[in-house]
């Protein structure tokens, strides 16, 4: 047996994230979850390095904070906030799915089929609407304090 052989064939690779046939709404939420997750971890690493600037003293710190007050950085800050809210709330939805909440009772597979995804969908819409509301409110507070 070849020990260097991959455990499975991920034929589509990253392309499969976006399209591999008919994807549902939840599948695109999954894509959004991944992208925001990667963005947030990349930002977190930069954020730790950037906040360490305080060790260079008051002038360096105030200079950096002055930079962050520019409109461009306000926009980036808002994008991060939006990404964090989406990732957190979609994560709560995934956690509830993982723990088996809001999936309905198991049923006989009788046509027309009712999948657990369809039974879970109202919650998905409610959570996404809540995320949109928080993102809009967060934007209004950040830009129009």
């Amino acid at each position, binding site marked *: 047996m070849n020990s260097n052989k*991959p455990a499975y064939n991920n034929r589509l690779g990253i392309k499969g994230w976006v399209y591999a046939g008919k994807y549902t709404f939840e599948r695109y939420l999954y894509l959004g979850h991944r992208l925001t997750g990667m963005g947030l971890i990349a930002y977190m690493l930069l954020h730790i390095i950037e906040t360490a600037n305080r060790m260079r003293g008051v002038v360096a710190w105030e200079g950096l904070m002055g930079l962050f007050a520019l409109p461009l950085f306000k926009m980036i800050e808002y994008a991060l906030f939006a990404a964090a809210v989406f990732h957190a709330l979609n994560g709560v939805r995934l956690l509830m799915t993982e723990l088996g909440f809001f999936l309905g009772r198991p049923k006989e597979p009788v046509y027309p089929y009712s999948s657990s995804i369809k039974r879970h969908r109202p919650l998905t819409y409610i959570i996404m609407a809540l995320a949109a509301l928080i993102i809009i409110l967060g934007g209004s507070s950040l830009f129009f304090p």
Partner: protein
Amino acid sequence: MRETRLWSWHLLVIPIIIVLLGLHFAIMHYAPVFYGVSVEEARNFEAMIERGKSVAQLVLYILLLAAALYHGLYGLRGIIRELPMTPALGKIVDITVICVGLFIFAFGTYVTWWTFSYPVGG
């Protein structure tokens, strides 16, 4: 079993991150809404040092750092490990992620401790 345990930790840290990151956002990004002070006031050097001298902040920030790094890097590792790769390369990915995580945790903890121990009036 090992993977199940790692996945369980990935889920268990979620409430910690939501609460502490929510607090972080409220203090640093939404100070006018929650505390009635401008963002500039909340972020000036003296205010930042004053907050950093609190034991609660020291502990909570280190906890947030650990939880967010674990959650984020475990997720990133999962994404990378999905790609076609040999078990040997997979092992290298695991070790790299652990080393990056430990380094960033140590650095972040040092910065938090530096703030906590900053001399008064210094």
